[in-house]
């Protein structure tokens, strides 16, 4: 009997250990060309809190250089961004982040208000897989799942990714237990240049009103920030495409006014920011490259320093060493990215 008990324990360890290992092996590592799926989990490596927290889609994680905010203003900031981050995902990410720290300012990019219901599993995965387990993650999954998805696949991702055994590469083994950083404080930088081209004309919509579900999460976000004593700033990044309709802009303006929030539509401020879209974008105007992101961070940093009285931490010993390392990483990434660009 004793032997059987010992054997049972060992077999259970073998089974669970084996499945855990296989799950790690089979989950996408996002260390190659597509890196967006690795962003969310990078946050948990942070050792200190931040003054400013950005939440939203690529219009935040590709457009604001967190290191410029540090270098020019001594602002500590983090972008909890992910591809096509839907507003409920932003809300639950904010809720989760507040368990770890309490930023003074939260910046939310409003483009995702246009989505009222779950969109694509692939994007859900890139946001949700990296989150640590908490009620925020559970609720986030429930809010995000498309009809084809199952909750159980999020609990045991091996059930979703098992078929990747056919596509395993050396990266899957190399990054099995430790991944390389793909962002610096959530900012994903690119150094290549592709001037902005012509965008297609905006398609007229049947209804310009934001959906009830999306607005409900904006309400929740506003309430959460108010409850926590955090300033919520709504922004629309200075990107012209996907098209930001004036009707949408009006709705966000009215909402901000009604709720005492700041809303900045940066599209008309492009010149004031100093953006040169023949140089400051890497994909013909859809996202900024590092040159543009630094200009935008410089502009926005000044705005929040002026209006929210953020402390300059550049001489704070708590941060100096940490940010020294981060700046090194930032410069290394720029160098590496330049090398890649040159090779291409």
């Amino acid at each position, binding site marked *: 009997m004793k032997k059987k008990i010992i054997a049972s324990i060992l077999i259970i360890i073998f*089974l669970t250990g084996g*499945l855990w290992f296989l799950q790690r092996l089979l989950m996408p590592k996002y260390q190659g060309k597509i890196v967006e799926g690795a962003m969310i989990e990078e946050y948990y490596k942070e050792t200190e809190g931040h003054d400013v927290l950005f939440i939203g889609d690529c219009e935040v994680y590709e457009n604001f250089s967190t290191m410029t905010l540090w270098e020019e203003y001594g602002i500590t900031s983090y972008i909890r961004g992910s591809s096509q981050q839907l507003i409920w995902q932003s809300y639950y990410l904010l809720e989760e982040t507040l368990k770890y720290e309490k930023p003074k300012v939260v910046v939310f990019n409003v483009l995702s208000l246009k989505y009222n219901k779950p969109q694509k599993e692939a994007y859900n995965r890139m946001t949700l897989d990296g989150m640590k387990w908490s009620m925020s993650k559970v609720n986030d999954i429930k809010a995000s799942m498309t009809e084809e998805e199952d909750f159980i696949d999020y609990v045991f991702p091996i059930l979703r990714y098992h078929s990747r*055994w056919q596509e395993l590469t050396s990266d899957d083994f190399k990054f099995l237990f430790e991944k390389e950083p793909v962002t610096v404080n959530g900012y994903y930088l690119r150094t290549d240049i592709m001037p902005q081209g012509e965008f297609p004309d905006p398609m007229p919509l049947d209804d310009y009103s934001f959906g009830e579900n999306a607005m409900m999460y904006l309400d929740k976000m506003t309430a959460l920030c108010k409850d926590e004593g955090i300033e919520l700033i709504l922004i629309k990044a200075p990107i012209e495409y996907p098209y930001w309709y004036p009707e949408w802009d009006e709705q966000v303006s009215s909402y901000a006014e009604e709720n005492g929030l700041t809303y900045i539509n940066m599209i008309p401020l492009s010149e004031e920011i100093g953006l040169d879209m023949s140089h400051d974008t890497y994909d013909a105007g859809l996202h900024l490259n590092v040159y543009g992101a630094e200009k935008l961070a410089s502009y926005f940093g000044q705005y929040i320093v002026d209006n929210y009285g953020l402390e300059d931490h550049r001489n704070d010993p708590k941060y100096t060493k940490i940010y020294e390392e981060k700046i090194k990483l930032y410069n290394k990434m720029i160098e590496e990215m330049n090398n890649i660009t040159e090779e291409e």
Partner: protein
Amino acid sequence: MIFTSAGFIAAVIIPAVLYYLLPKKAQWPLLLIASIGFYFAADKRYLIFIFVTFLAAYICTILMGRIDLKTKAYIDSNKDKITKEQKKEVKGRAKTRKRIFLIIGLIIALGILCVTKYTNFVIDNINLLLKDGSKIREMNIIVPAAISYYTFQTCSYVIDVYRGKTTPQKNPFKLMLFVSFFPLLVQGPICRYDDLAPTLFGEHKLLEKNISTGLTRIIWGYFKKVVVANRIAPAVIALTGDTDTYKGTFVFVAMLFYAFDLYCDFTGGIDITIGISKVLGVDVKENFNLPYFSKNIKEYWNRWHISMGTWFTDYIFYPVSVCTPMLKLSKWSREHLGQKIGKRVTVYLASLLVWFTTGLWHGPAWNFIVWGLMNYVVIMASQELEPLYAKFHGKFKVKDKPLYGIFEIVRTILLMSMIRMFDCYRNVPLTFKMIGTMFTKVNLKIFSDGSLLGIGLTAADYIVLAVSFVIILTVSIIKNKRGHVISDNAFTLRYSLLALLLMGVIVFGAYGTGYDMTQFIYNQF
């Protein structure tokens, strides 16, 4: 609900855990609740059909039981007063009265089956005879899940009660559980009341042996179903779906693939059913006995879908063979056609009915009927050829040679697989045509020119299938020789292999949607 759905797995795990936590008296009621819940989850509209079938069976068998009791009481109390002939007469009258309830019970159960499953088939066939303007419109009828299985199971119970073989179950809830026991509601098998009842309604302790055997069967079943059947099924669909491209040797490949697919799907499903039942302490009879080791078709049908084969034998073949009109026909044939032909007439007719209904039971389509009739033709032909075989074996002493045994096995597999192509193409003339191309358009290049990589299977898939084939064959050979694969005493080995197999199923199983990172279009977020 399918075996591989998360819903099915949850619907099994939750009752299985509760089963051993609750007092033993609550075990079978829990199974009844789980079964009703299972059926309700599949589609709540189904419940009414299964309930009517159950209710008719319950009332009819209770009334038959009462007739039996009354008859017995009458005979017992008048033991000394009545003669043997009078006793026989009383029994005969009772049987006639019982027969009314038998017929009512069967008409209701089979009526529901026929109306739901076969109405549109009948309409379609009538329409073939009608002109365009006068065609009858097809009806929108739902076909309750597992109706063929539970109807046949219920009918066998009603007939067994009529025959006095089974005592009627007085507790309606217990009978409802027999009719609706959820592991059987996916792929059968068709269980007999007397086989199932003792363990179904019994009280069960949590026994390591039951859990061990049950888990082994469940995981082995999932391996066959998820790793093999689910992987190969799309290739079969591709090969049989495009008949212009995939003819000749492709048909041969499709035939072998479908043989492997069907075997793994069906035996895998039954393994899961038997395994789940075993975990609950319920013994479900085996439905397969290594059918691909059969040396002839008759043997094959004794080893494949055993519960269906024995059902048709017990409830159609035998009663039809000995019914009064058939006995009269037999007598007439012997007198007018001679002993040799005469004695065959009833067997031929009863077998024809069996195979016609077997085909129809599989589905309301001519391809299934023709499939059944093809089996009939082959079985009858091989029966007729038996003297010839005997002569051959008398002359050439090859019967006991291992190679000849393998030849017989391969011959049976190929023959059965070929007949099964009616199931694949679902069109009788097309099936004959495609089988014909197998012989007229031989093209062995398809094995080397990459054509077989264009049917939904990658090179890696072929490796998984080949390894799985070797595993299944090895296990089957060991089972055939020793009767079991791993000894019950080899605790550590059994569970270690099970753990490995489970990991294999999870990783190599073909389930869920393939994760494709290429679907991320960078500029759309």
